[in-house]
């Protein structure tokens, strides 16, 4: 059975229908890509799947559990994590605190008034481990706002990984990255796929086709095709509408 299933999702803002009919089925342990032209509804789709927006219709289940209409923090606690297309970090504080705040062990003690934060070496070790996964351990005690752009992108991913989620939604992780950084990110995601189920919105087609097991193509708020990268490349209609020069 699939780990994460969305059936017939609909979402409109006023008179504008953004999601007409979205169905997705994401297998455990896979890398699932989502692509489509600008304004197709990809990010809105992520917002609905992770609880940021409530869908107007349809059903979302995670691990057999109905999570339709649940709040973001409830969905997050079940093991669904996400990163954002526009950077969303705790900018005033150091890199490691960004990760510590997201650790499950820290959150459970969030209301505890007697514990200390930075004297808990176990939490710090754990946070360093997470930072190590994205290659940021050496930056742990620097201010998040002062990291260069590419490393801030990596920190986004680290914060998403910190709560030990079962599924991670990454919204355009390559956006703004140079070729070199994009290549490093591909290596990272290939490494992460052993531990997490990953859903990826991507504009960079080479990147996506290289990594994804299956890809859903969204256009006009609908899934117009879903297949393996190889099969998709032979679909002329998809090629013309979404792939542009790569196909």
């Amino acid at each position, binding site marked *: 059975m699939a780990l994460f299933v969305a059936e017939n999702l609909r979402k409109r803002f006023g008179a504008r229908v953004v999601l007409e009919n979205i169905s997705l089925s994401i297998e455990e342990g896979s890398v699932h890509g989502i692509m489509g032209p600008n304004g197709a509804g990809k990010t809105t789709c992520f917002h609905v799947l992770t609880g*940021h927006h409530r869908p107007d219709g349809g059903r979302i289940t995670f691990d057999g559990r109905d999570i339709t209409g649940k709040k973001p*923090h409830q969905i997050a606690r079940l093991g669904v994590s996400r990163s954002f297309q526009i950077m*969303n970090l705790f900018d*005033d504080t150091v890199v490691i605190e960004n990760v510590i705040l997201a650790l499950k062990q820290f959150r459970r003690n*969030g209301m505890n008034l007697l514990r200390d934060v930075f004297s808990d070496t176990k939490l710090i070790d754990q946070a360093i481990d997470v930072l190590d996964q994205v290659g940021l351990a050496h930056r742990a005690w620097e201010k998040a706002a002062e990291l260069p752009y590419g490393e801030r992108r990596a920190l986004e991913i680290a914060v998403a990984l910190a709560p030990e989620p079962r599924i991670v939604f990454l919204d355009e992780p390559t956006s703004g990255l140079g070729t070199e950084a994009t290549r490093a990110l591909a290596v990272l995601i290939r490494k992460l796929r052993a531990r997490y189920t990953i859903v990826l919105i991507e504009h960079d087609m080479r990147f996506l086709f290289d990594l994804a097991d299956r890809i859903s193509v969204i256009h006009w708020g609908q899934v117009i095709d879903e297949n393996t990268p190889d099969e998709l490349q032979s679909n002329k209609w998809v090629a013309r509408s979404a792939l542009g020069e790569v196909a």
Partner: protein
Amino acid sequence: MRMITLSDIPARGGSPMTPAMALFMLALATAPFWLPAVGLYQYLGIEVAIWLIFALGFNLLFGYIGLHSFGHGAYLGIGAYAFGLFQQEIMVSLWGGLLAAILAASLAGAVVGAFLSHRRGIYYALMTIGFGQIVWFCAIKLHGVTGGEDGLLGIPRPDLVVGPIRYSLADNYSLYWFVAAILALVVVALWRLVNAPFGRVLQAIRQNETRARFVGYNVWLIKWLTFILSTAFAGLAGGLFSMAQEGAYPDVMSLHQSGLIVMMVLVGGGLVSFWGPVLGVILYFVARDIIGGVTETWLLWFGLMFVIMVITRPEGLAGLLHVVGARLRKKSAPGAVPVRKEA
């Protein structure tokens, strides 16, 4: 120049016995002995201590979680009236009155907070003003309960009773000791709170509510609880205030008072440091008494000081001290400039 924030000053778990804390406790414990000697008076100590309780609780909301309430005078007032009504209608009891003050203010805070907590920014601020005005209006119009514009007069100062010991708080000297003891407890409790995980979560919500929500924090609940907590401290301060003034009147909860607490916290540097509100409250009262002794227009000069502070050091007095301190440290140890690898 980059603005510094509360999060710049690192969390320090463990013992609250820092140099700043030691200095504060020392000043608190010796104030009655030197206040008259420097030309001030005993009652000022009580007033400052009460406003410190109010300001420190308020900064939990204002500085730490970053929610800007401009209507907090209302909860100070509710505490004052609740204390007075308890003495006059139920029984003369110190603990009963203070408990009533805390409960009444936090109950009001819970109701108002429920309307506020899904907002932030300008909407949050405007709604706090709105609710503050409603409370103030009620205090004036509900003659039967609050005594209208005259307020409640002749509120007694109940004796402090602990087991078999009975201690009169009728004179300002003994009341100071009582208020100072409560303030000391409040300071230690709040210091613990903001340096515990809870305090870091508050700051995380200030920095990025969306991110906090998506790593699993119930942001609404935490915002609501923080509002209630700050109103509870305001209620406590209000109860003590009506005891000190031996009365409660609508002025206590006017928009003017609500603005005053914001100004004190900002000038002192509540956005930057736990001790910011302390500096702000002291600066305000000292300015009132010292500049006020020289000229009637002291508020004009204090206002000017506020403007200059906001222009030159928006982080307030605590921010200024932090920057000066950092510069002095750098000068005294030129080799110890922090090394940062540029990427």
